[in-house]
């Protein structure tokens, strides 16, 4: 089987490679494979018996007419084994091919790891190749741009600090139309909860931030949002395996929390940022675990409902299915909490098969959606199995507690004409919860 793909041009990769020589490539490879990687790389490469147990676990393989070049071990063969066989002496063309495989044909969802008899961390092996591409600079342009924005502003879309403060203030004003004396406290010291938002919530999806503020107000949470940069929990540098920037972002979040002396950080519905906040970034900074609790939206809502701090007034009657975001389910076992919340909100739930921590990725995760429009076709093709999975449930609403899953499935919905609505828990809860009479304006 040959590696056959339609040509795609990404200036972040192609233009960078024009200015790179093979010496620089070799240096990046040597650094990553000899200095940064160690036992795991060697043992994983050696123990792989090429048994093919991982093959059918991958949604890209299943979505591509069983083309072995999309199988998990097949992707390892075409990248890391190839680099090792060539002893690091690879060409620019090779790097271009590797970058395409690791950025647009693997979501690093780690489903294959669950299927490997040796527990070989295939996603780790492919992320080593991402790291090599990152050191060379050959990373999809959209990821590069967002990572640069993170370096400058600690948010993903070049938002200035005053724009953030301004946005929060007018959102508070608007919320007052719905909730009497609604507050979005900015930079309040000694609050219990520090809420971090998704970058998009401050620009294109402000409704989501408003809804979160609504829930906070109704549940009477002692909360605050940052008054400085560091309000955006996203961490796009992580997708490029730019660990230095990733660490800087996570450190900023904890620094804001320490300065405001809050008890815990609560974030919205996002996958990768949760993972960096709770262990990937935390480990990079030298902590074993997060120094103060770092709570995902799903866990936060679960606790609010369990403790009865919010009450649900009415339930959704339409058929609903649940998307299990890899980063919070396979990576943090939140499947049960997610189902508890959904069971409180919806009458008719039809589950996808497979589900929970064996669920398929939405095909947008791991930076594939962040790689930008040029790679959208790869995402749509790879998501075929996800689209079929959703279609088979007959659901009208898909609940996706992750920004990436949300947008990814919205795109699949359009591409495969699934006729579903994709919903965040935040929006559903804000819509369905009981608002006490005294809080109504």
């Amino acid at each position, binding site marked *: *089987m040959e590696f056959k793909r339609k040509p795609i041009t990404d200036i972040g990769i192609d233009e960078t490679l024009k200015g790179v020589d093979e010496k620089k490539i070799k240096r990046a490879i040597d650094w990553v494979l000899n200095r940064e990687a*160690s*036992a*795991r790389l*060697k*043992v*994983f490469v*050696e*123990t*792989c*018996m*090429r*048994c*093919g*147990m991982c*093959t*059918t*676990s991958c949604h890209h*393989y299943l979505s591509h007419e*069983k083309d*072995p*070049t999309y*199988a998990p*071990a*097949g992707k390892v*063969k075409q990248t890391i084994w190839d680099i090792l066989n060539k002893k690091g002496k690879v060409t620019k063309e090779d790097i271009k091919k590797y970058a395409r495989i690791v950025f647009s044909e693997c979501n690093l969802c780690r489903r294959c*790891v*669950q*299927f*490997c*008899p*040796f*527990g*070989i*961390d295939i996603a780790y092996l492919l992320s080593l190749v991402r790291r090599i591409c990152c050191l060379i600079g050959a990373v999809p342009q959209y990821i590069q741009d967002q990572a640069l924005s993170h370096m400058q502003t600690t948010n993903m879309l070049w938002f200035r600090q005053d724009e953030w403060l301004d946005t929060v203030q007018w959102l508070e004003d608007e919320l007052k139309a719905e909730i009497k004396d609604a507050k979005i406290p900015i930079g309040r010291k000694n609050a219990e909860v520090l809420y971090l938002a998704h970058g998009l919530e401050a620009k294109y999806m402000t409704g989501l931030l408003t809804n979160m503020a609504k829930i906070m107000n109704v549940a009477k949470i002692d909360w605050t949002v940052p008054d400085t940069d560091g309000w955006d929990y996203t961490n796009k540098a992580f997708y490029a395996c730019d660990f230095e920037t990733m660490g800087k972002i996570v450190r900023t979040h904890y620094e804001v929390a320490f300065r405001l002396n809050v008890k815990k950080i609560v974030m919205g519905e996002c996958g990768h940022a949760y993972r960096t906040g709770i*262990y990937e970034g935390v*480990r990079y900074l030298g902590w*074993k675990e997060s120094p103060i609790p770092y709570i995902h939206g799903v866990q936060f809502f679960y606790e609010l409902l369990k403790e009865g701090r919010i009450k649900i007034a009415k339930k959704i009657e339409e058929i609903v299915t649940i998307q299990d975001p890899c980063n919070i*389910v*396979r*990576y*943090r*076992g*939140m*499947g049960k909490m997610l189902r508890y919340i959904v069971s409180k909100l919806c009458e008719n739930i039809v589950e996808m098969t*497979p589900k929970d*921590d*064996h669920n398929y990725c939405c095909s947008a995760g791991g930076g594939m959606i962040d790689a930008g429009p040029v790679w959208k076709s790869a995402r749509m093709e790879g998501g075929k199995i996800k689209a079929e999975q959703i279609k088979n449930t007959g659901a009208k609403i898909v609940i996706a507690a992750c920004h990436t899953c949300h947008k990814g499935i919205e795109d699949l919905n359009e591409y495969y004409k699934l006729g579903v609505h994709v919903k965040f828990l935040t929006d559903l809860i804000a819509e369905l919860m009981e608002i006490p009479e005294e809080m109504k304006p």
Partner: protein
Amino acid sequence: MEQFFKDPSLYTFLRGPMLWLAFLVFFLGIFYRIAITLREAKKEKIVYPYLSLRYTLRSLFRWLIPYGSISMRRHPWFTAITFLFHICLISVSLFLVGHVELWYESWKIRWWTLPVSLADGMTFITIFCIILLILRRLFQSDIRFLTSSSDYLILTLVALPFITGFLAHHELILDYKIMLTIHMLSGEIMLMAIPFTKLSHMFLFFFTRAHTGSEFGAVRHSRDF
């Protein structure tokens, strides 16, 4: 050993000094590989701090019992083949009457043995499984894509002691003594290859599972099976 000095021949060489060498390379090789792996794992900041005995055992249990993992349940035939293959391979090597007799002859130690006909059947199953594994490599597209010549070489390396042992036992093709000589030689080569080839999965299995099992259980709060 003494036999070789009294009567130096290829047979007594393989039965004496060469066997010593094979076991020495086998055990020292394994020890060396494990020591190196454990030392290098220290450089990986995320391995040791997160190791968990509970989740290591959970992971090993799930992957050592047949059909204990979703992956094995999804591949029922392959699972049957690999389990039969590994069980027969290990049991015949350790519990064959002929092998145990040799240990008794040299060291005066003895343990439980397999009935001869059962051992014969298990040898046949081992060879049959190897043929199936080779056919799978040849005809299943995703595995053919991954396979290189070294994979066939390793399967041959494992198959040879069993084929020659089977032929020697039934006194087929070659003279018993010659076949037995080839059998011993191939077995010794296989033993020595274990620590330094992909056959090292025999012991590395426990290390990769410990890491991944702990990572999935203790850090990711989900299942690795």
